[in-house]
């Protein structure tokens, strides 16, 4: 009798939960109430998202999360990071465990459509590369016929790898691991001849090796890996906000607004800067935050260029060139629609 009642109570409680999940409330509203942005991040990739010696997360992806928090809550530290493996990340976003996924995630058509995600601005243009031991004396990825390749599962990398070897009629053996660390360890232990991931990841991981100079990155870049933040389908307000935080940081760089000069820039007569910093127009309100949202972003996090240089560029151990990630005005691909 008691157990029946218990079961019934449990059943009703479970019902309540499922019904509760169905009633939709905007993510922005939830973030404001919670006072925190929950971001899905990786388990630790230098330059993109990794805790420093004090345990504070640092990286481009983390700075994007902080920029969102600064725009909404005026405090870049009001973020909670949830570390996700490559294979768990989409489930975490789909199920609402995180607000936004910023985790070196490649924008692809199937993810954009059938996985139920919306990609909000490409914060890093990347491509897949290969790392091998220098002692192997390999000059090109086309010499990799018959090699064993270590990679992380649940990534575009796994698919591009299959495509590349198929297109070039080469054989290979794949060994797939859940986390990047396991993949790297297996490569270092000699389980594989080749380690493959996004080129930025290769540079970042090589820094962790005992002898980085024993390894080299092959010249071929075999895929397009536009890394972007993503949100769930069905909440356009939140999608707009995440997207425009990215564009604001690009526009800030283009207009020369930096962390150092943002206060002087508030007095600027340039109408574009006035609209960007909210001294003219009501652009913040359009995405559900106050009009000085970009001032908060730039003051707390910086513009795109500053974020890039600090985390992966010349101001970081990675020393990656801007290249494709430069502004369109400087020969790169980063191009933001205007704020008007």
């Amino acid at each position, binding site marked *: 009798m008691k157990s029946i009642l218990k079961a019934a109570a449990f059943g009703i409680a479970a019902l309540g939960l499922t019904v509760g999940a169905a009633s939709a409330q905007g993510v922005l509203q939830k973030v404001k109430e919670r006072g925190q942005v929950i971001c899905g991040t990786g388990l630790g990739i230098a330059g993109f998202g990794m805790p420093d010696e004090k345990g504070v997360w640092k990286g481009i992806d983390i700075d994007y999360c902080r920029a969102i928090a600064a725009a909404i809550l005026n405090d870049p530290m009001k973020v909670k990071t949830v570390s996700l493996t490559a294979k768990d990340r989409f489930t975490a976003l*789909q199920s609402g465990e995180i607000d936004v996924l910023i985790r070196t995630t490649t924008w692809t058509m199937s993810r954009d459509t059938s996985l139920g995600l919306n990609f909000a601005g490409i914060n890093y243009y990347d491509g897949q590369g290969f790392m091998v031991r220098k002692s192997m004396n390999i000059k090109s990825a086309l010499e990799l016929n018959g090699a064993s390749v270590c990679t992380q599962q649940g990534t575009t990398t796994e698919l591009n790898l299959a495509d590349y070897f198929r297109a070039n009629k080469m054989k290979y*053996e794949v060994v797939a691991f859940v986390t990047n660390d396991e993949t790297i360890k297996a490569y270092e232990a*000699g*389980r594989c001849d080749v380690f493959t991931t996004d080129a930025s990841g290769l540079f970042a991981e090589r820094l962790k090796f005992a002898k980085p100079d024993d390894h080299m990155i092959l010249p071929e870049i075999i895929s397009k890996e536009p890394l972007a933040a993503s949100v769930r389908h069905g909440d356009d307000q939140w999608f707009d906000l995440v997207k425009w935080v990215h564009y604001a940081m690009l526009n800030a760089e283009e207009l020369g607004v930096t962390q150092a000069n943002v206060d002087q820039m508030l007095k600027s007569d340039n109408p574009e800067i006035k609209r960007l910093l909210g001294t003219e127009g009501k652009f913040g309100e359009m995405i559900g935050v106050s009009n000085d949202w970009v001032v908060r972003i730039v003051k707390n996090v910086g513009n795109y260029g500053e974020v890039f240089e600090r985390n992966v560029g010349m101001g970081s151990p990675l020393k990656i060139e801007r290249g494709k990630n430069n502004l369109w005005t400087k020969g790169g691909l980063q191009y933001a629609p205007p704020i008007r």
Partner: protein
Amino acid sequence: MTTEADRGAPRVSPLYDPKVRGIAYQVVLALVIVFVVYEAATNAIENLRAAKIASGFGFWTVEAGFDINQKLIPFSSTGGSTYGDAFLVGLLNTLIVAAFGIVLATILGFVIGIARLSKNWIIAKLSMVYVEVIRNTPLLLQLLFWYNAVLKPLPDPRNSVSLFGAIFLNNRGVVMPTPIAGPNFDWTWIATLVAIVVWIVLSYVARKQQAATGKRFPANLIGFALFIFLPLIAFWAAGGPLTFEYPKQSRFNLTGGMQIYPEFVALLLGLTIYTAAFIAENVRAGILAVSKGQSEAAHALGLSNGQTLRLIVVPQAMRVIIPPLTSQYLNLTKNSSLAVAIGYPDLVQVFTGTVLNQTGQAVEVIAITMLVYLTISLTTSFFMNIYNSRMALVER
């Protein structure tokens, strides 16, 4: 005229009838369960549709586009293999490691369990240390240990350790020549089959004869000899129709031949050694459960130590051992999903890993996986229950 006795039991309102009440409660509970399941399912479907996430099982026949190293059926991104094929590859990998693991863990477990009861102090204490150390450390840790233990000391493929110039050992695993059956090889299989049938018939006849006359006939010895020699004779008579494809050294790896991957070896080692410790304890408990008088009586009848163990103690101990042994088999099978940690492509690694991630259909993939483990577990317990009922004490 009716008396009290004719009327039978006193009439009770159905409201207070425990039988009616019981049924009513069960119906209500069943309805609640059906309702909850229905509500959860429709809710999930509704939410998936609202978020425009693909659902259904259409992904099963879509090309997978990735590769898996260890596969028992053909699978490649080149051949247009589907997510359904990936599921089968993963399932077979789970089953093969579970099957090998169960056999090896049983053998090792019985040896250790009996050794723990040995009169030899060193053997008994060594087994005790084995059981306590293995049983009390996490399996995941042991798997990582074995994976590194397998990988680290072995040379790279360019410096393979070679046995007889045919079997090669390196940190990519063991590479052996692939046997290729010639046209008349079927005769060897037929001879094997004949030998097995003869063996079964022989042991049946021998048992009958012993029961009737008390005379013993070495049926197992003869059967075993037949099992070994009959196929060999058939093979020789057919002109040895078997060739080997030898592994060849290429720039990176040995190509050709059969390969046993280090991930498989590490997982098998880990699962076997871990589960054997538990089985050893079950075996020890089972043997201790047979009262001392049984072996004393057997010795008094002139049976040797081995005979006592084989004919008197073990059959009785089996009754105690089998039920917990079944749980250990189920544990081993389920624990094989820890393969994820060392990159062995089992069902969980391939299907709930890569396939789930590429298709994004978590609900379907997890549901299928749960169903598969449930089916494997129920099938295992079904067969173990049959075995158990055969071994159980027949009460008359």
